[in-house]
């Protein structure tokens, strides 16, 4: 559906370099990266709104060269939505249908369906867009983009200016849209949660380059670089050295400061390999002394002490110190788990760094 091969593009003080991407039909593909990574520039280049210097872009099989591709039904919702201020809500939504001379009865039916799907039926008769909230504008922009039944929908940071509650609602709507309308979605965001909730696959972008493409679980558990790991909030990164690889047993031991981490063997690593060991805060478990150990948490058990406790919207982030490990270990707990463990600052705890959740990046 979208194929990008060896794309290079130069802008005033920015470059897109050697971009390779493929988005298949019906996929919801998310381009994730920090501000200034070049996500919008890449999107605009793929849409043909900006020229590329080298490489190939195919949209629905049509080449994008020096302007938007012809003959492919594409809709675009930019970050600022671009709701037409000189039109009523109804005229905004039906604009594309009228331009394409959609049969009036069919247009009315489509409008009613989309308005119901996006909960904007009440807004249709408003004469002006001035009184719309950001969430309502977002829905109107989505309806306007969808009424032309696009094969590909490009969304640039669609939920960035919305508060948490409205954003969650719209993310759910987008899931519904995708399953109802079977449209391919290419979405740009800087928000991890949004990316992981929406993306069938996610591409991570830094400074004009795609660093990693994969399914959400791959990005969370198998970051290919420290840059990706840090960006995706895998806060626990420890520098160490592989001390033993037992291919027969399928295990590997890595020394980090004064502790030894056991993990499944990594084929390309051998003894002496310098590595960064990564584990997400959610994968570090606090072991209750009064309960039997589960099979998955028997390895990498360490004694530690809670150093800091920071409340978050859904629970707590704990910073803990493990004996023999210089780098503190971050743990993320839900409120429920935190209450269950009956923890206080400076509590002594037993931690498990789940072996199969450890990931190693060569240094």
């Amino acid at each position, binding site marked *: 559906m979208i194929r990008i091969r060896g794309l290079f593009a130069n802008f005033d003080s920015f470059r897109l370099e050697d971009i390779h991407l493929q988005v298949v039909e019906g996929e919801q593909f998310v381009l994730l990266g920090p501000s200034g990574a070049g996500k919008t520039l890449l999107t605009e280049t793929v849409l043909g709104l900006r020229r590329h210097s080298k490489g190939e872009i195919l949209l629905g099989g049509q080449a994008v060269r020096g302007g938007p591709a012809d003959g492919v039904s594409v809709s675009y919702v930019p970050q*600022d939505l671009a709701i037409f201020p000189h039109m009523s809500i109804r005229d905004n939504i039906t604009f594309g249908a009228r*331009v394409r001379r959609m049969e009036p009865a069919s247009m009315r039916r489509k409008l009613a369906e989309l308005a119901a799907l996006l909960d904007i039926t009440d807004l249709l008769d408003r004469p002006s867009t001035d009184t719309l909230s950001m969430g309502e504008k977002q829905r109107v922009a989505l309806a306007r983009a969808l009424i*032309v039944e696009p094969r590909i929908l490009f969304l640039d940071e669609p939920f960035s200016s919305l508060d948490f509650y409205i954003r969650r609602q719209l993310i759910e709507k987008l899931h519904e849209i995708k399953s109802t309308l079977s449209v391919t979605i290419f979405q740009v965001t800087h928000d991890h949660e949004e990316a992981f909730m929406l993306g069938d696959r996610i591409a991570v972008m830094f400074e004009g380059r795609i660093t990693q493409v994969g399914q959400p679980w791959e990005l969370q558990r198998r970051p290919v670089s420290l840059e990706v790991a840090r960006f995706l909030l895998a806060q626990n990164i420890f520098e160490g050295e592989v001390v033993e690889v037992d291919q027969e047993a399928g295990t590997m031991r890595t020394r980090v400061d004064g502790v030894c981490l056991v993990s499944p063997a990594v084929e390309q690593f051998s003894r002496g390999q310098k590595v960064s060991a990564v584990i997400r805060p959610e994968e570090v478990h606090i072991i209750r002394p009064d309960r039997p150990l589960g099979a998955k948490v028997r390895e990498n058990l360490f004694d530690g002490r809670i150093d800091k406790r920071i409340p978050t919207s859904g629970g707590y982030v704990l910073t803990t110190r493990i004996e023999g490990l210089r780098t503190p270990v971050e743990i993320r707990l839900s409120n429920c788990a935190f209450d269950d463990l009956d923890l206080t600052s400076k509590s002594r705890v037993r931690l498990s760094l789940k072996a199969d959740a450890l990931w190693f990046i060569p240094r």
Partner: protein
Amino acid sequence: MRARSVADRSFSVFTWAMLGLLTAYISLIVIALFLRVNADSYGDTLLSGRALSTIRLSVICATIASVLALLFAVPIAYQLARKNFPGKNLIDTILDIPIILSPVALGTALLVILSSDAGRHFQDNLVSFTFATRGIILVQFSIVVALAIRSLKAVFEQIDRRYEEVAYFLGCNRWQTFLRISLPMARSGIIASFILAWARAVGEFGATITVAGAVSGKTETIPSAIYLGLAEVDIQETLVYVLLLVFVAISVLLGVRLLTAKRSV
């Protein structure tokens, strides 16, 4: 802290004083004009056949020149606002010449061209401009088109190109995008530009008198009538014409201010 408070207050007094002085100066000019005109002079001047013909000519010429100017200025300003191309700065500068150049100098340049062999041949066989109403329109157009381009370029630059990009992906071709999105969004800016161009055309004198002269009943516009009135030392009639231009200026400025305040982009 006290020193800063004194400095802050003195700065405020200074800016208010400057504002007050200049407003009083301009208001005094207008008030003095009103006071110098006898009440009878308004009727005597404005209802005379000559004045009616002068006002009618001014309004008609300024309207035609402004409409023509907008017909050129809208697409040119859009192109300049939206596209980057080699030589854009040079073209932009060339288009600005009529704004910077003294109107008499522009009129002289036009007169020289129209009086050349080619110009005379053109006038003899196609359209005559010198000492004709068409000459007034040509001169006014030449001046206000540059003004209209400048103001409309700013209007189109204010319209985010995203609106056009979205419309394009919704199925519009470039014409439809321009006519259904850019033009309606620029509407109040275009009207404001027209009003400004029209007012500038009504007040144009230097280039008009150079090319078209000031033949009573034929090429005499309001500014020409003021000039002729002064030459004939007919102060009362002159002042009525001046006040008419002041009235036009105030109406235009208020109109433009209201329109630009309402502008949605």
